[in-house]
């Protein structure tokens, strides 16, 4: 199938997947922080690689990303993406330590890194388990991998499977945020199914490929 042309029904299905995953993740985040969490309606974007980097501020933007590679029936990649400031704010709120910073002159702070890794693990894990329940597709996530670097460098790792097949990626992007303090936290979930997974996802949800 040609993934650069999705029907509106197919887009709706992917949007719903993003919705269910992020909804579950927002609930987890709400429990973790004991705060009200908002969630935006997911967007489904068919983008070139360069456009994908632009979705989060360009290839040089410094980001914190927790990356899972999904194995199983519908392989793909999932990212939880935060800016450094947002990640630090999340760490502040979990640990109650206002002074913590992710990167100092001596390199990354170990405690901060493990807190953000665990938070990312919980959030992305709940995103994936909702997805797996909803589609009845067996999804086995890898161990979570944390990286703090340029967006371009991090996100191409999730494009490698796709890039052998096409020059476009389908990004299911959902934002969850809490904004009751002055500075909010906003996390982006990027779900990047491998090309062959779309067929399985659509089939599992009763939508045919070619309409």
């Amino acid at each position: 199938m040609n993934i650069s042309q999705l029907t509106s029904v197919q887009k709706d299905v992917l949007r719903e997947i993003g919705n269910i995953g992020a909804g579950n993740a927002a609930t987890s985040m709400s429990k973790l922080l004991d705060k009200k969490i908002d969630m935006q309606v997911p967007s489904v974007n068919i983008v070139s690689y360069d456009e994908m980097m632009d979705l989060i501020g360009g290839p040089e933007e410094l980001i914190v990303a927790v990356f899972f590679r999904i194995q199983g029936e519908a392989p793909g990649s999932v990212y939880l993406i935060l800016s450094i400031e947002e990640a630090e704010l999340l760490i502040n709120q979990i640990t109650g330590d206002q002074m913590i910073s992710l990167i100092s002159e001596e390199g990354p702070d170990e405690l901060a890194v493990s807190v953000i890794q665990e938070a990312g693990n919980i959030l992305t894990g709940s995103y994936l388990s909702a997805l797996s329940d909803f589609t009845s597709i067996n999804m086995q996530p890898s161990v979570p991998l944390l990286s703090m670097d340029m967006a371009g460098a991090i996100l191409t790792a999730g494009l490698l499977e796709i890039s052998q097949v096409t020059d476009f990626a389908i990004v299911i992007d959902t934002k969850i945020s809490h904004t009751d303090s002055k500075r909010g936290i906003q996390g982006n979930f990027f779900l990047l199914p491998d090309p062959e997974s779309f067929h399985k996802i659509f089939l599992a949800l009763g939508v045919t490929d070619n309409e």
Partner: protein
Amino acid sequence: MNDVQTIVKVGIADLNVIKAPELIRTAGLGSCVGVVLYDQTNQIAGLSHILLPDSSLAKQENINKYKYADTAIPLLLEQMVGIGARKSLIKAKIAGGAQMFQFSSNSDIMRIGPRNSDAVLEILKKLKVPVIAADIGGSSGRTIEFDPRTSMLKIRKVNKEEIYI
């Protein structure tokens, strides 16, 4: 002097060529490799942002030749000769090929950084283009910028001093 320098940007799986005083740059190289070819005498340079090592990996019909090391580098060379570079004078500097995530699984695709660097070096050897400098491997993203007037490649990593090779 009012010398405004133009910086030509190269996207992912793309390439371009320039003449001095223009600069050429690409941002956010992870496992990708940035290949700079330059002819110092004629002050011409080209940059290719390579995503995958070999076009035999392609599972699509109309491949994007700028994506693979084996197809992009000969095209880059051709385009440089097209704007006046001498093939015998062309040299190379390369950067990138990092491994952004340390996977325990033995999935080949995740070792793509080192495989990209190896492929690039092999193609350059085959084309008889000498590699003057390289900053490859590691686990950090890189942004690179080349100035054909000085033949220096500026490399920026997150939280590190810029280096020139």
